[in-house]
């Protein structure tokens, strides 16, 4: 249902899932990859042992394209249901996780081909068709040299703003992946991490989806600590990390925890030169969604404990079942903080987003 009033303030939405079908990727693939998909009906392996139990599964029940195509597959329907209806200034595309080249556990050459095809498809069908949409560079991070080549190939596209890494079971801070961060920094690209289907229960899956989904922040914490304690931000001082889709309430506790651990264990990681909480404040941003229901007072306490109002950035997660409405998800927070959360923190994070429009006063 169309919202009657548009959001009054600028919105930069850090998590919008566009969806490709394998058929649509075929023209962007060479052989043998094209034949492999066509002849064997190949689709990427999935790991979740349960269905996602929204009313219609993974997607909002009202987001399926009216002609029956899957949610997120059609730009004009997305424009109508999200970008125009809400009044987005900008949105960042994060893929639909299928394919997710960096998640592949075998045949990395295929992963490389898929990442390249995906980027070309994304640029042609989304980034160059709507001014408001910005993109993520998909890579096959298992093969850092190929990943760097792909960042070199498309990273300077004016609408590519980040490199996307899925959260599965590889902690990305490992020096093996550092060439990716070097290339991202050189191209003014943020590293965006979004969970794929991580085993988050002692390396396996918990019995119920509600458990898996509730402990998702754990997998984000693993990545944040991996990036910090492997010295990524000391090595690449201009690199920024966007942790997408685990909310933000875990951050203050985790900042305190890492600081306390660092004080007693610094001798293990002497390349880390300052308090983890200070690294988080300078380098890490997180999204609101999926938002925990908070009163204004509760919300402000979390911001206070982070000691920064620049870490939290708004996202909807459209078209997924746990979409957050820009009109209803957050309590009223006051003009200044709302401007930061809904747009300005993201604008500061992504150097390639347009500058803030200056209000013309009569």
């Amino acid at each position, binding site marked *: *249902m169309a919202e009657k009033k548009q959001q009054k303030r600028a919105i930069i939405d850090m998590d919008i899932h566009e969806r490709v079908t394998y058929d649509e990727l075929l023209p962007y693939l060479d052989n043998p990859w094209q034949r492999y998909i066509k002849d064997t009906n190949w689709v990427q392996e999935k790991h979740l042992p349960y269905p996602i*139990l*929204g*009313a*219609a599964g993974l997607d*909002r*029940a*009202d987001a399926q394209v009216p002609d029956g195509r899957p949610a997120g597959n059609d730009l004009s329907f997305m424009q109508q249901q999200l970008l125009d209806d809400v009044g987005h200034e900008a949105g960042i595309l994060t893929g639909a996780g299928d394919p997710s080249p960096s998640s592949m556990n075998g045949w990395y050459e295929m992963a490389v081909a898929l990442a390249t095809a995906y980027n070309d498809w994304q640029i042609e069908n989304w980034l160059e068709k709507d001014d408001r949409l910005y993109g993520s560079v998909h890579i096959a991070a298992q093969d850092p040299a190929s990943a760097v080549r792909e960042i070199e190939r498309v990273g300077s596209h004016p609408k590519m703003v980040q490199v996307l890494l899925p959260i599965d079971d590889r902690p990305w801070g490992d020096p093996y992946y550092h060439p990716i961060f070097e290339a991202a920094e050189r191209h003014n690209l943020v590293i965006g991490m979004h969970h794929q289907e991580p085993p988050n229960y002692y390396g396996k899956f918990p019995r119920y989806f509600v458990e898996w989904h509730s402990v998702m922040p754990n997998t984000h914490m693993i990545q944040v600590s991996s990036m910090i304690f492997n010295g990524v931000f000391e090595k690449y001082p201009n690199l920024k990390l966007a942790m997408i889709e685990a909310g933000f309430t875990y951050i203050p506790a985790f900042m305190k925890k890492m600081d306390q651990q660092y004080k007693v264990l610094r001798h293990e990681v002497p390349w880390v030169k300052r308090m983890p909480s200070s690294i988080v404040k300078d380098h890490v941003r997180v999204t609101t969604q999926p938002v925990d229901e908070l009163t204004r007072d509760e919300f402000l306490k979390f911001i206070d404990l982070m000691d920064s109002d620049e870490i939290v950035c708004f996202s909807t997660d459209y078209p997924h*079942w*746990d*979409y*957050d*409405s820009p*009109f*209803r*998800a957050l309590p009223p927070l006051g003009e200044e903080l709302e401007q930061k959360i809904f747009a300005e923190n993201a604008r500061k994070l992504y150097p390639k987003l347009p500058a803030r429009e200056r209000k013309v006063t009569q």
Partner: protein
Amino acid sequence: MKEVVCKKEELSPGNIMSANVGPIPIVLCRTPDGEFYAFTNKCVHQGAAMSEGVLCGAPAPTDTPGEYNYEKEGEILRCPWHGIEYDIKNEGRMLVDPNRKLGNFNVSFEADNVIVSTKQ
């Protein structure tokens, strides 16, 4: 406020539709036993249009982990977004928190017409 929203046969049992009572968007539900129920077409959580949701059943609360007794088929309205379950035969109350419910409307009939009116 009162409005003829449809003919009885326009909504078959087990289905839902959107309609308006004056300016107010509503969701009209017809349970498998043929009864009609009408609620505000807005989820109390983040405001999704309930008419885009699904009419389904729900596993009954149980004391035994692992036990599923699926009941109330066609009497539970699940929100199209986050999937909160509302019991339409219990005034549209949330299963998870019966203190919260969808706005209720009266449903009456004149011949074949389904009439929805605001509660007095």
